[in-house]
């Protein structure tokens, strides 16, 4: 039996209404990482190390250790997300910490270098880290801005319903196009036969499909000079175009929401490899 304490806890849980990962617990992780950055920046200027700041001083080693621990922990988000274990963890809290601590790495990592950058494996690790962070910033921006557009565009339809909607229009077009003349029929058939889901990366990201045969088919039925059958096909083609646009916008938003992960994650793996090389070489040549 559940005790009343459990009930109160459940109530508390329900009380937290929708709250974004960015404002999780009143920006707890933003505060923590700002504090961390301030400490690192002030201590960088207060601590006087000989001959100058670089990764090899005791101060540099401290920052490096913090950095490496952070990087490993940040990359574990990928495991946390997929490993649905029991316990009171919240992926939103993890994401929140991931974002703000990840941003703090800009300061920690850069201060660790002491601004000694060059063409070597050490700078490669730093550059990969920055690449991961920059793609991550893009991710935060799209996560914060795009879902609203995604939701507006969906108009309560699921992906499957959109595709089914297109198929239904296509069946009607096929039936309505029977009485058309050879030339008109060919244009319609070309539009129907085109695989609308085969699109290049650029088309997907921009939502612009210059080779769309449906648009071409619409042009083949200019208003004013149409008989009854052509009129019907023309209306249906316009509906097809609007359904296609919705699907394409959906694909575009999804692509924009996901594209950065294709750099963020491989770059993270490369970063960990470079980091390993960096650490091994530092100790080897000590």
């Amino acid at each position, binding site marked *: *039996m*559940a*005790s*009343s304490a*459990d*009930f109160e806890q*459940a*109530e508390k*849980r*329900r*009380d*937290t*209404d*929708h*709250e*974004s*990962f960015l404002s*999780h617990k009143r920006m707890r992780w933003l505060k923590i990482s700002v504090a961390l950055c301030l400490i690192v920046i002030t201590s960088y200027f207060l601590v006087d190390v000989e001959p100058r700041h670089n990764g090899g001083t005791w101060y540099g080693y401290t920052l490096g250790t913090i950095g490496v621990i952070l990087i490993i922990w940040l990359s574990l988000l990928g*495991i946390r*997300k*997929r*490993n*649905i274990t*029991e*316990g*009171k*963890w*919240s*992926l*939103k809290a*993890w*994401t929140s910490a991931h974002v703000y601590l990840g941003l703090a790495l800009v300061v920690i990592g850069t201060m660790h270098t002491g601004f000694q950058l060059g063409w070597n494996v050490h700078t490669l690790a730093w550059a990969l880290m920055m690449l991961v962070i920059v793609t991550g910033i893009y991710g935060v921006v799209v*996560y914060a801005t*795009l*879902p*609203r557009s*995604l*939701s507006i565009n*969906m108009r*309560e339809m*699921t*992906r*499957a319903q959109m595709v089914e909607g297109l198929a*239904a229009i296509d*069946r*009607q077009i096929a*039936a309505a196009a029977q009485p058309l003349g050879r030339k008109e029929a060919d244009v319609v058939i070309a539009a129907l036969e085109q695989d609308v889901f085969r699109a290049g990366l650029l088309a997907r990201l921009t939502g612009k499909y210059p080779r769309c045969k449906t648009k071409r088919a619409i042009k083949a039925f200019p208003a004013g000079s149409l008989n009854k059958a052509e009129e019907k096909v023309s209306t249906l083609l316009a509906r097809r175009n609007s359904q296609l646009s919705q699907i394409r916008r959906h694909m575009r938003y*999804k692509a924009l*929401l996901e594209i950065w992960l294709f750099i963020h994650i491989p770059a993270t793996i490369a970063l960990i490899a470079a980091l390993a090389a960096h650490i091994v070489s530092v100790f080897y040549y000590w």
Partner: protein
Amino acid sequence: MPDQYRVAIVGSGPAGLSAAARAAALGMPHILIEKTDHLSDTIFKYQKGKHVMATPSNLVLRSDIDFEAGKREHILGTWDTQIGEHKVNVRLNAEVTGITGETGHFTIELKGGDTIQAEAVVMAIGTQGNPNRLRCPGADLPLIQYQLDDPGEYFDEHITVVGSGDAGIENALGLAADPKQNNTVSILNRRAEFARAKPANVALLEEAEREGRISVRRETNPAEVRANELVLETRDGTEVIKCDRIIARTGSQPPRGFVEDCGIEFTSEERSAFPKLTPSFETTKNGIHVIGALAGYPLIKHCMNQGYDVIEFLNGNADLKPADEPILAEKFAALPGNRSVDEWLEIFRANIVILGELSPLQMRELLLDSDVAAFDSGDVIFVRNDPGSSMFCIAEGSVLVETDPDDRSATVPIEQGSIFGEVGLISGRRRGSTIRAGEPTITLELSRTAALKLIATVPSAGRAVNRITIERQLLQMFGSGLTKEDVSELVEAAEMVEVRAGENVVEEGGEDKDIFVIQQGSMIVEKSLGEKPIFLSYLPAGSYFGEMAVIDGSARTATVKAAIKSEVVKFPGDAFLRLMEKKPALRERALSDMAARRQVNAFVEERKESFSGAVDMYSETAKFLVDNGIGEATDVLLIDETLCVGCDNCEKACADSHDGLSRLDREAGRTYAHLHVPTSCRHCEHPHCMADCPPNAIQRGADGEVFIDETCIGCGNCQRNCPYDVIRMDSVPPKKPSLLSWLLFGAGPGPGEASYDWRKKTAEKRGTEQAKLAIKCDMCAGIDGGPACVRACPTGAAIRVAPEKFLTFTKLVEDVE
């Protein structure tokens, strides 16, 4: 063939077969009469290869024919063989049209004019009934059929489907699905709308109509059937169409009418009532017995046991103990006193007021679905705020109700024979107070289904429960030291009112002076500003309203209407006023409640001018949520689409925490103002899914979650009954390789629900195929940390809330300020 059989068994389902086999084994002259040309039609009609379950597993099978869980074909095959081996006297293709005569010499009339004489009759005809026949000239022609097994077997035909329900539409769609079959399919609907069918089916039909695959004829009746033609009566006159085949799907006639015509009485007028029966299954018509689903036992094992028992009783075996005896004995073993099963049954019946009129057979059935327990003085029976929808009866002893959550010593007793916990049963809400035993006590805990069945089938029990509920609800709501005597005037004057969803109970500006208590369902309070209704608050079951007009004599200040189908209790305002005169504490309480509500009203009035889109928006959002079933929800998943990136991690987490199948569909469902209600269980106060579960496998758990336990037989009733489409039928997939081996080596399908292909192929490969069972959200009961969907959301888009938390006035204030 003898002139007169000792027993005629009507219906060859599991109950009838088992009875006939017993009669054959005893050498009793018998005949088994079956309407169709094969045995056990209900199971015969199951889809090919369906896995049939054998529940309850603790019940011993007592029959001359075998039965164990397995494929439909295997079970039917076994029965056919064994009925042959037992030399059972079967008569197929014989539809009984009437039973006349008295015990010792019944005449059974068959369709076609034959009669059969028998001393006794056992009716085991189930509840499926007969399909409604077409009623027009030519209705007996062979081109009419009442069932469609395989739409793929007809080619190049003109086929007309009659009927506008789901069965008719699905048949028509199936016949027209493959253009290669080249069928010309029409469907007739007596009305203009397809109101009885699922919206999804209607949409498919309308699409097929637009595409010209099916001709849909509305407001059209069949007028005459001819050899290759059908005469139609349309709005504009008669029309003749070509027709090679007619599929009539116009519903079926429940068998009750036929049973009553044989002189058998039912327990009540309720649709769910069963025939009145003695412990030996004899009806009010001596010599006619009723067993199986028609007697109220839908499970195969029960039916078969009853078939055996009824023949033993007819054979004079009076000592036979019912097959459930060991189950009951085990239940009662925990009780003190070492009494026999029959003694305990009699104690429960005699001591508990609401059970007074039950027969021993009904008592047995009730006890099978119930729990008995003994408590020592001071033992806690349940705690305030515990979820629970069962009802307790006090067989011996008495209990104490803690009236003040902060003071354990403030209690009110409930005496032997009475009931408690009924508020949870009726309102579906959490327990209102902690209850402990006042002395050594023996209780009977009726499960929700058992209690509801009791209330519905035994009128006296229903009335008693109702009266007690109203009285208790008043005492609990107003507290303030009221006693039963104080509220008796109100209870006497109380009137139960059923309210349809959306119906107004109180109208703004009205002059009526009654007070209402919500017993079941929920209400929303609205106030109109200009022309628009503004949502003020949501009232769950157990709240009262209407007191303002009573206390200060003013007109109604707001409209209260039902969010869902509800039941309210209406009390006359003057009786309430008199009670307030007598009890100053109650007066104070009511005034303070009123002051709070008045504040809300004043707030709205005050801001009337400055009310902006924000309030409108909130009001509309609240309306949207109520329209989407949140009014009957206890806990619902809401997704904020301004935060949702569509990663589906909620679905993946759901699948990975529950046997690899997701119980939620994030994308599907309605959205308003970026607030999305996904297809996921709302854990309704009165779950529709529980309504018709043969093994009673759907329960409300310890945290208020509605879940399906392992006794599910996969019948699919709950899936059909759920208005929100949140239950799926699927088989538990094989275990996936671990996350690490997927990450490192790409083994298996990865996180989340595996594709149907992977599940099917892997199960086949490993030989671990399982039956399809009903699965639904259980709110991650028993999983530390709570619902995985919420924990696994990376952006904070997914939350679970109780409606009274979400639909509050404070949110309105927050949004404005």
